[in-house]
C-alpha cells in the first residue's frame, strides 16, 4: 500500500512486542532499519528473524550521552535518517501516594527525555534532507489516565505535547511529527492476565478484542509514508474504540 523503498528508519525498543511488529512493518514496506534496544542478545535474536536490510544498535535509553550518540550512529550506519520511531517505553506502576522518586524519574527519563534527545538529534539530518518523519508511540492512558500509572501517563501525554511543538517548528522543512496511541495490545503481559480480568478488559473495548502489534505497525507505516506528508502534530489512536478522542 505504502512504499518506503529507499527510506531509512531508526526504531527504539525494536525487540519488544510492538517494536518488533513496527520493525517488520517498516521493513516489509521496503525501509532499511537501525534496530535499537537495551538487551543486545534479544535484539540480535529478533534481527536474525527479520528480512531486509538492517543493523542493530544497542543503547541504554536512560543514559543521556548514549542516547545523544544513537542518531549519529544510525545516520552513519544507514547513510541518512528519514524516519525515527520512538517506541521504547518502560513502566514502574505504583499508586501515586506510594510512588518513589526514582519510579517517577526513571519512566520520564526513558519514555520522554530520551525521545526528546532523539528527536533533537534527528532534526539535523532531516532538516538538511528537507524530509523527515518522527513518530512516537504513546498510549491511550496518556489521554485517559489510569490508576497506578501517574508516571507512565505523564510521560505519554508529554510525548504528545512535545510532538505538537516539534511539528510546529519543523513543518516548513517537510518534517512531520506525530504520535500513535495504542490501546490494549495482545502481548506477553496481557496473556498472563487472569480470565476474569481479561473479560473485564474486553468489556471496555467496543471491538471486543485486544489489538495486535500489526495494528500499531500499520499506523506507523502510514505516518512514515510520503503520502502522510500533510498530517502533522496528530495522534492516531489505535484502540478498537475504547476511547474515542
Amino acid at each position, binding site marked *: 500500500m505504502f512504499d518506503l523503498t529507499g527510506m531509512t528508519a531508526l526504531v527504539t525498543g525494536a525487540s519488544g512486542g510492538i517494536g518488533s511488529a513496527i520493525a517488520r512493518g517498516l521493513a516489509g514496506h521496503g525501509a532499511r532499519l537501525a534496530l535499537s534496544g537495551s538487551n543486545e542478545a534479544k535484539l540480535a535474536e529478533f534481527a536474525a528473524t527479520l528480512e531486509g536490510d538492517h543493523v542493530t544498535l544497542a543503547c541504554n535509553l536512560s543514559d543521556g550521552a548514549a542516547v545523544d550518540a544513537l542518531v549519529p550512529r544510525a545516520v552513519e550506519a544507514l547513510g541518512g535518517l528519514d524516519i525515527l520511531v520512538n517506541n521504547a517505553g518502560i513502566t514502574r506502576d505504583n499508586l501515586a501516594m506510594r510512588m518513589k522518586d526514582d519510579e517517577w524519574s526513571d519512566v520520564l527519563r526513558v519514555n520522554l527525555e530520551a525521545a526528546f534527545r532523539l528527536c533533537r538529534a534527528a532534526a*539535523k539530518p532531516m*532538516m*538538511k534532507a528537507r524530509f523527515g518523519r518522527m513518530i512516537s508511540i504513546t498510549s491511550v492512558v496518556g489521554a485517559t489516565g489510569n490508576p497506578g500509572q501517574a508516571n507512565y501517563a505523564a510521560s505519554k501525554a508529554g510525548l504528545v505535547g512535545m510532538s505538537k511543538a516539534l511539528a510546529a*517548528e*519543523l513543518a*516548513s*522543512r517537510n518534517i512531520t511529527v506525530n504520535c500513535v496511541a495504542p490501546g490494549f495490545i495482545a502481548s506477553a503481559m496481557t496473556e498472563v492476565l487472569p480470565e476474569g480480568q481479561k473479560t473485564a478488559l474486553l468489556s471496555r473495548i467496543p471491538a471486543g478484542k485486544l489489538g495486535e502489534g500489526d495494528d500499531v505497525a500499520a499506523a506507523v507505516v502510514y505516518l512514515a509514508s510520503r503520502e502522510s506528508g500533510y498530517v502533522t502534530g496528530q495522534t492516531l489512536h489505535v484502540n478498537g474504540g475504547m476511547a474515542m478522542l
Partner: protein
Amino acid sequence: MSETGDRVKKIVIEHLGVEAEKVTEDASFIDDLGADSLDIVELVMAFEEEFGVEIPDDAAEKISTVNDAIEYIDSHKG
C-alpha cells in the same frame, strides 16, 4: 569581500533564496534577509559544515549579520 565572505554569502543566498545584492556585510539575517529562527539554525549548521568549525549555541545566538558570521568563522577556523 574576503574568501570567507564569498563562501558565507554563497551559503546565505542558497539557503534563504535571496538576491545576491541584498547580501551585504551588514545585512541582518532576520531584519534584512527575511530569515526566521529556524533558518538561522540551518545557516549555522551549513557554516559549520562548510568551514569545519564548531559554532556553540551561545556564539550562534550572537551571529545576527553576515559580517558577524564572517568574523566568527575567520577567528575560529583552523
